[in-house]
């Protein structure tokens, strides 16, 4: 089987749904959305807590409600979607190979492609916790799926390692389901998740958060019987003598998300070592013409609203590319300067406004300035924390005459 499409979107999480919708609304006729799961919505389906779409729709939705709203909007269009469909290869000339139980293996030739595969959770191996290998060690997302979709409690006495948002949300969820969450341990000296989640998920339930702590050993032969936690020094090395054994039957890991870019790599798309996602311009176009990327496959965002925003941009530009393959335009680099750990996008191509997503390198608890050079442009903030992404917008007009790279620096005032 062989299909053709103007725009093909891979992945139907919020980024993919929004991208497909906006590609269609921007005039692409044949928009195809491919999803490997049996339902649309991606990870939203299992995020039954609220806090979605506040900025985009000004309504506080739960994950499934938010997905439902997008899906409804999409259903009113002619966007086609295929479920249970796994894309197994993508070529630089935008030929997609996919497989599903109904059609077997098939190819799609698409004028433009939007990558929206999202991210996956870092597993235990990724952080090398020594000890035994019993049952009871799960990523927070797996636990979330067990509880919210399958209706099972993965354990009764839980330690959470890492204070990423999913970990925080699961600490609350498991408590509500009757499990005892003994604490959340975070290796950094600041929390990984959003402030509102610390308050609503931990503080409100009296779940202790231990900063500068990590799990240094897992014990138990068949099922987890406990973990050893240790304090860490400034270099994040465990401090000898600070070990403490905590009895538990479950260890949840919320230790980071990794953009899922195996397909992108296969297509020869260059990735950024800091975001682990494709290097893109403000139009969300990757280094391979006609292939766009958006959402958490590009960089791990804090908020679904940001994800949706990049989806909109990607969808609109993918439609534009599908109509008239754009000539090679010029583009310049966007560089992360002082105190900037992560910066997205990494290039500017003079097509759109430049919306920058920035993470600072360390917590700055006093007024600061974000400078955009060579423009004489500054944004002021009262504080900045690595766990809270900063979004700033630079209008196209301001940028049209510059020739040298754009650099973003954060300085304390």
């Amino acid at each position, binding site marked *: 089987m062989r299909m053709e499409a103007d725009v093909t979107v891979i992945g139907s999480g919020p980024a993919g749904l929004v991208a497909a919708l906006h590609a269609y609304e921007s005039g692409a006729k044949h928009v195809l959305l491919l999803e*490997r799961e049996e339902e649309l919505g991606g990870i939203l389906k299992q995020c039954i807590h609220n806090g979605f779409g506040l900025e985009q729709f000004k309504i506080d939705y739960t994950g499934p409600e938010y997905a439902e709203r997008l899906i409804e909007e999409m259903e009113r269009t002619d966007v086609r979607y295929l479920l*249970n469909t*796994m894309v*197994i290869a993508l070529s630089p000339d935008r030929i997609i190979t996919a*497989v*599903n*139980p*109904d*059609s*077997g*293996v098939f190819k799609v030739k698409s004028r433009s492609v939007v990558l929206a595969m999202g991210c*996956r*959770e870092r*597993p*235990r*191996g*990724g952080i*090398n916790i*020594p*000890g*035994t*290998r*019993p*049952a009871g060690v*799960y*990523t927070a*997302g*797996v636990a979330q*799926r*067990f*509880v919210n*979709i*399958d*209706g*099972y*409690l*993965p*354990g*009764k006495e839980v330690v959470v390692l890492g204070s990423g948002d999913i970990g925080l949300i699961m600490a609350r969820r498991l408590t509500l*389901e*009757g499990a005892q969450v003994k604490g959340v341990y975070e290796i950094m000296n600041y929390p990984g998740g959003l402030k509102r989640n610390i308050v609503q998920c931990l503080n409100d339930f009296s779940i202790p958060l231990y900063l500068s702590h990590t799990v*240094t*050993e897992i*014990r138990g*032969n*068949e*099922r987890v019987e406990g973990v050893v936690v240790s304090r860490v020094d400034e270099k994040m090395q465990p401090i000898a003598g600070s070990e403490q054994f905590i009895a538990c*039957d*479950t260890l949840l890991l919320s230790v980071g998300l990794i953009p899922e870019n195996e397909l992108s*790599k296969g297509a020869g798309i260059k990735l950024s070592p800091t975001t682990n996602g494709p290097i893109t311009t403000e139009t969300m176009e990757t280094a391979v013409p006609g292939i766009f990327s958006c959402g958490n496959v590009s960089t791990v965002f804090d908020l679904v609203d940001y994800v949706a925003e990049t989806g909109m941009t990607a969808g609109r530009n993918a439609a534009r590319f599908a109509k008239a393959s754009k000539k090679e335009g010029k583009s310049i680099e966007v560089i992360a300067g002082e105190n900037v750990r992560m910066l997205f996008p990494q290039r500017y191509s003079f097509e759109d406004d430049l919306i920058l997503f920035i993470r600072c390198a360390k917590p700055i608890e006093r007024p600061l300035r974000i400078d955009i050079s060579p423009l004489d442009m500054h944004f002021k903030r009262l504080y900045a924390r690595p766990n809270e992404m900063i979004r700033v917008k630079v209008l196209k007009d301001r940028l049209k005459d510059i020739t040298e790279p754009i650099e973003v620096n954060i300085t304390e005032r």
Partner: protein
Amino acid sequence: MSLNKKELSRTIQDEIEKETGEKATVSIEDSVVRLNGQFPSNQSVVDAGHIAAEFEQVRGVLNEIDYPGKKPFVPPQKVSDELAGKEFDVVIVGGGIIGVAIARELSQFNLSTAVIERHDDLGTDQTAHSNAMIHPAVVTKSGTLKWEMNYRGNPMYDEVASQLDVDLKRVGTLVVAENPDEELLFSYIEKMSIKHKDPAPKELDREELDRIEPRLAPNIRKGLLIRNTGIISPFELTIAYAENAMANGVQFFVNTSVIGVQTEEGSIKAVDTTRGTIRTHILINAAGLYADRIAEFAGDRFFTIHPRKGETIIFDKSYQPVRTVLASFSMAGEGSKYSKGGGIIPTIDGNLQFGPTAEEVCDREDVSTTFAGLEVLFDKFAPVLERLKPHYEKPDKSKIITHFAGCRAATYKEDFIIEPSNKVKGLVHVAGIQSPGLASAPAIAERVREIIVQEWHPAENAHFEPRRKRGKRFTELDQKEREELIRINPLYGHIVCRCENVSEGEIVDAFHRGIPIKSIDAIKRRARAGMGRCQGGFCMPRVLEIISGEANIEKELVTKSGGKSFILSERTK
């Protein structure tokens, strides 16, 4: 004679005291040395055992010295009688690679054979934790039984792999010379290889090196390729042997521990298991880390197993800096007296591994990994790899996807024991099978066959079928084959494990190949779901669902690896 014995025990006692500063009680009977006493540490106890074993006239060492932290051996409790009344000609204790290879070998005869394995799946002890290498014999000490089995077993793998439809790659061990002086050492390795009956290694110039192991450091001009080094999947091999044995009539009992052996007038009569007593007249002791316990049950103790732990780290597939088992002279001499010192080894699935370490431990069940182990492996191999392959990304810890450990079943003689018992008729020991036990497995099975044939003259099984076919794998098929397969069975079009592209069809197939399985790890070993970079993070709930359906058990009862390793605790309210 009795004076001799006295002299020997005296000498052993003195030597032990000289080396460890501790006094052991030494007694000798039938050339078996027995050590008793109270020592301060496990290591000193192990040293004592090794010292006693050094003497040539010592056949085995029973080391009963106590030390703080020593684990008492408590055999598991009987749980049922469901196997009571069963009777076999041969019972093999242990479903590791050795037990299953023997089972398949014996299935060529008209013998009723059973394999008893305490875990919920086969090959879960030493076999699962090995480095999956088919070693060249040159790594062993010539003249030992280990050496003989290794040099015989290694070439047998070509036929074994093809009959059992298991992937085998003869990647070779490549020893590179980092300077002209080291080039002179090649002739020594060549001489040693020939002495060990390996095929002659091949000297390679730079051009040939570039073909075999691309982009080595510019200062490397020559290398020596030891061609018979192979890599294989020990899980796949174990399961393939077992499936083939099963097809030829062998029965497998998992979740069953042997907890006693009954003899009558010096002959094997029955084995007591946690699920009832099984009658048999031939008992093959292939119990790995517990082979000394089985010997003890049968009243024929003459060796003690001391577990030596090895840790290994595995890197993500996206990082593939080597094609061969890569070695430099700087790594030589890094090993201890009793282990080879580990290496930089590719796996058959295309992951790089560093390992193993070697550490004497108190507990045979100690499969825990340590910070120290990781550091040792990293410090030892990362700089060598960086130096030999400077054009590749550096091996950094963030690329590690998993870290595991396993214990080697070492005796103090540090050699294999493959022999009929000289005390109990019908008992055959296959013990002390530490590394290179995997490389030796086909030869060990053959040796056991010879023992059985010589003693019992069984008739041949006219229906023996040496070939086994493995299940289809989505990743290995071309587009046409995939389409065909999915048309017949749409489950092959449903990808469950996205890291390894494993389809639901492959997972379901694992349930229909004879050996009953119920755990997540059993699926991982067979279908590779969960073996990839996310280590089951994504597919585990799906695999659990499939197990629950196929094995027809409640989700709460699905385990990670048998026993009480339940994945879920209860339904939510």
